[in-house]
């Protein structure tokens, strides 16, 4: 569904990604792992058009995304949950959700469907996003992205700093999205979380896609985790 071919790019003269090729299929979770600075977040930002590609292509259902202005990329059905959530913290929960809905002109039906997934947010619609707990903020960040009814969902370290019950809730949501045909690209550092959600795992090293393998072929003791992630 989302095809990344020979993608290179970075910040100014610094090339972070070097010839990355990766395919994320509908109904599957593709986990991207690698050490700090390997280029995981840069890859997601390049997909979103926030980092310009110097070479290569990013295709979604035949449309080349890399040449589009950044604000047009999400309208093609790519939902993004950035690292650190990046909520509009002075806006209320309801307003954050509305921004998500406006992206592709979805209405009340989508809003209700998303809030059914996160009933706790329904109770806090008038609360400012910045005053939510860490777990609730992550729920809102995911809910906001789901308001696009995305074909592809990009999640950048969604479990970072969360308690186990919240991590389980996020895993349940990701697994539910799999059944609806969403292609998920998940940047994650926790091996247990990766193995419980992923269909394929891509290992980035210094901006190069070093290895891609089926998650079923990996165990917590697999050498790839030591080699590429250092755990």
């Amino acid at each position, binding site marked *: 569904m989302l095809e990344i071919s020979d993608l290179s790019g970075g910040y100014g003269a610094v090339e972070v990604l070097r010839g990355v090729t990766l395919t994320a299929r509908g109904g599957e979770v593709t986990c991207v792992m690698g050490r700090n600075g390997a280029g995981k977040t840069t890859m997601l930002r390049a997909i*979103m*058009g*926030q980092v310009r590609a110097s070479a290569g292509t990013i295709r979604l259902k035949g449309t080349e995304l890399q040449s589009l*202005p*950044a*604000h*047009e*990329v*999400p*309208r093609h059905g790519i939902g*993004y949950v*950035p690292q650190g959530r*990046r*909520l*509009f*913290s*002075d*806006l209320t929960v309801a*307003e954050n959700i*509305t*921004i*998500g809905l*406006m*992206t*592709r002109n979805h209405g009340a039906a989508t809003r209700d469907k998303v809030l059914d997934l996160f009933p706790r947010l329904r109770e806090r619609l008038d609360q400012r996003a910045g005053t939510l707990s860490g777990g609730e903020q992550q729920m809102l960040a995911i809910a*906001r992205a789901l308001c*696009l009814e995305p074909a592809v969902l990009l999640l950048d370290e969604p479990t970072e700093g969360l308690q186990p019950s919240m991590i389980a809730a996020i895993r349940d949501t990701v697994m539910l999205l799999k059944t609806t045909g969403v292609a998920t690209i998940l940047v994650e550092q926790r091996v247990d979380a990766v193995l419980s959600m992923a269909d394929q795992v891509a290992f980035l090293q210094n901006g190069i896609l070093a290895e891609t393998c089926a998650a079923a072929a990996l165990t917590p003791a697999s050498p790839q985790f030591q080699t590429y992630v250092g755990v």
Partner: protein
Amino acid sequence: MEFGPFLLLALMEGMVMSAVLALTAVGLSLVFGVMRVVNVAHGEFFMLGAVAAWFVTQAVPGHPALGFAAALLLAPLFVGAVAALADGLILKRLNYDPEATIVATIGLSYIFQQAALSFYGPDARPVLAPFDLRLQLPWFGYSGYKIAVVIAAALILIGIWLFMTRSRAGLVMRATQADRDTARAFGINVDRVFATVFALGAAMAAMGAVLIVPIQQAHYLMGHDPLLLSFIVVIIGGLGSLRGTLVAALLIGLSDGVISVFFSPTLAKILATLFVALVLVFRPQGLFGGQR
């Protein structure tokens, strides 16, 4: 006149100043809050509004109210269009870099000033008030137009507040203010938002100028004071905080009115500057600004 009525007169004068200052400073604060651009040309947008008001009132025949109503509509539209053009031609090309835009808006302010000198001339020219009404209080008479200025400014500010908090466009602006990268990730055309905000900020300055020009006259150098006072207000209120800007405009306007009437206008400016210095030392984010 006894002290009580004298104080009332000073407060009424202060309210007129607060009203116009609030309109002008909210425009400056909005531009900084959303775009992170310190618009040094803001005072010249104020001046352009006043000059445009003079041209419009000269062009519209009949009762002064007709010309004034046309000026209140057309001058902000004209100044907003000039600002949107400046945004597209200059600020966008500088990628809204904070330092570069300061230099660029300094340049813009000189261009606007010299353009006004060339096309309007060096003279201060009056614009007739839309009506001539004098309210007779028990202690003194007072201009009905000045009271209308306060009411009009309050209505415009309420309109801006409703626009920012209740409308879809206002929500988009607030989201862009909070995080422009994330706004882009949700389909918001940040460049278009910036052009709109820059135009709206300039139009607000122009609205303030149209309201004040029957009291002060239009002049090509009249942008200096509004710029200085607007900066004082947004620094005290907190850069980017609309609520803080309103409170600070009220504070500075009223104190300026009272001190000017009882002592001297120069002392009022000195005290306002001292207050800014104290805010910068003890609360650099302003009275209502968050930590950045």
